[in-house]
């Protein structure tokens, strides 16, 4: 708690613009997670199998193995869809900001590594052009910012959990 209090005091000294931009970043990333999770929950028959099967790069074997096991793939589907949804809600609310930032970073790292846009690796590009850095990595960087500047303690429900 002391640590959080200290953070709260430091963040409290930021300018209004700084606080606003950091909190906005948190809400925007949360919004993105929430909608991605929501779509996966409501889409009948959505499965991570296709994504895992399409994995390439040095870790492809692990992701293919996940898709190869029926029960594991089912578990992953639930973890991903509900994980994204809950992380999204928590980031928007500013609740358990540091914990969910770590969880979000973990998901994004997995997404990045399953299809890394590295030189010499055939990966699924989607729209845009990428070399080493792609949108997963950019969002991962954004989440790292949220982790070290957990604005939930100033503008978010985390504030309630911290005594002055």
């Amino acid at each position, binding site marked *: 708690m002391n640590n959080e209090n200290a953070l709260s005091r430091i963040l409290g000294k930021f300018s209004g613009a700084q606080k606003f931009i950091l*909190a906005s970043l*948190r*809400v925007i990333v*949360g*919004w993105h997670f*929430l*909608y991605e999770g*929501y779509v996966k929950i409501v889409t*009948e*028959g*959505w*499965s991570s*199998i*296709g994504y895992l*099967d399409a994995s390439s790069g040095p870790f492809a074997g692990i992701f293919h193995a996940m*898709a*190869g096991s*029926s029960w594991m*793939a*089912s578990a992953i589907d639930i973890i991903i869809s509900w994980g994204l949804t809950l992380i999204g*809600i928590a980031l*928007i*609310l*500013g609740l358990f900001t540091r914990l969910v930032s770590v969880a979000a970073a973990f998901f994004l790292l997995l997404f990045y590594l399953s299809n890394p846009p590295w030189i010499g690796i055939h990966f699924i590009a989607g729209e845009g052009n990428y070399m080493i850095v792609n949108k997963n990595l950019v969002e991962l960087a954004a989440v790292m910012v949220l982790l070290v500047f957990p604005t939930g303690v*100033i*503008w*978010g*429900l*985390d*504030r*309630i*959990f911290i*005594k*002055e």
Partner: protein
Amino acid sequence: MAGNGMKRRDFLKAAATTPMLGAFGAALYSKESHDKAAREEILQIGKEVSGTNPNILKRNYKRIGSADDTINIGIVGCGGRGKSLMRSCGFYPPEEGEPRGLEGTEPLNLKLTAVCDLFQPSIDWAVKASGGTAKVYRTYQEMFDKSDIDAVVIATSDHYHAPVAIAAARAGKHIYVEKCMTKTIKEAFEVRQVVKKAGVVLQLGHQNRNSNRYDSAMEVINKNMLGDVSLIQCYTNRNTRNGAWVYDIPKEHGPMNAPSGPRNVDWEQYVINTIKRPYDPNRFFRWRCFWDYGTGLSGDLLTHELDVINMVMNLGIPTTAVASGGVYHHKKYVSLMTAEGEPLDSDEPVPEGAIPRPDVPVLRRDVPDVFQVVYEWPDRDLTVVYNATLANNWGRAQIYLGSEATMDLTDGVDVFADPRSKRYADWLKSGKVRPDEAMLSYRNVAGKGVEAITAATAQWTVAKGLLYTYRGGRMVSTSYLHLKNWIDHIRDNNTDTICNIDDGFQEAITAHMATYSYLKGTRVRWDAENERVLFDGQQSEETPKELVAIG
């Protein structure tokens, strides 16, 4: 914690971003309403139903409350396809384990009591699969005379389909027969006549009719979403030796009268109703490569396409057929074994030191590996083009080309507005519909466990709905569903199965028109009024010399 100490200002700050959750909800509601309205507008197109396809009723058949007594079945022809059908019926040696696509399905309550095959290891397999109770019969005639079966599954080589089916019908047995229903045009008439007279329930083995994508395809056609369909394209592409019917020949083959070695093949009976030739394992285990026993690409793979097109469009027999093709790629094949004498799979990489098998002659097929046919229905202003190669695996699929839209059955059902469509012009202009994006799309639920299917030919069959479909989110064997439809109709004493004798007659005549056209080098016509097949320049129904001999 929140409590007395918390000031009002604190609370406001803590809840500062909470309204964003409300904003998210509002945005979500707005987006969902917008998408739903757009979807419903597109679905409105189909309000004016253009006509009702009777096949829709057949697809929705539900068994009436008939008795559930055990039905005794027999199998004639228990090779590759026969084994697979037995597995779908629930019969397999215990060590094989439950096959895919049967999990959670309703048992059919059958008993396998009679087996007839010309290869001893297949007989042994079937007896084991029956739990050791099935009786073995050397001939199908004997089976129909002496056994206690109510129904028979016929999965022989094509040249035996009609003779066995006719004998079964005369003995009052219900029939599940593999495609192509017959080997010749003449037999198609005979089978239809005998089956109808006997009143037995016949199911022709086009199990892919049960794939649920065709419900959507038929809805699209029924609602006239495509406008005038003038052309349908369909294809077969495979590029493996197995896909080209060069199957493995087991070590333990050999004719019954062999002076030495295994005596497992009843070759005498195999050639009884076709040209008598000396024993050749290629002609027994790779029978699809020869006109003496098979019906070629038209009877074997074209029928998968044409049968469902017939179901979706309710077309009947085409008025004309023109075909061409040849043996382009698989001209000859030398069967190999390792230095130790172990047979090698025709698709495996050849190890060093492999040598030709002394027990298998060089395979030289006479059935084409490249084949195309153009069918016309002038009364429907429609042409269907089929072409196939067994030497390339580039995936192509059924495409229905209409004046207003195109329907693609590659991965499911996708309907694309035609860029020049008049009906969809406003939507295309406003961007509500884009020509390169399906305006309507139907997909099977991406199944759990499709990963186990790896062979190229198997992948092809999955995509075409030949192996599995989905019922309530569960992957189900289409063969099981097809057999169940047959069994349900037997119990209900109803001959109108999902692929009944009339569908079978149409399938056989349609396939053979292409085969005869290719073999005789002429255009073939169907005279619907008199139910006759005519050849341009020759007013006869004579059977091409390659297809002689039905005793």
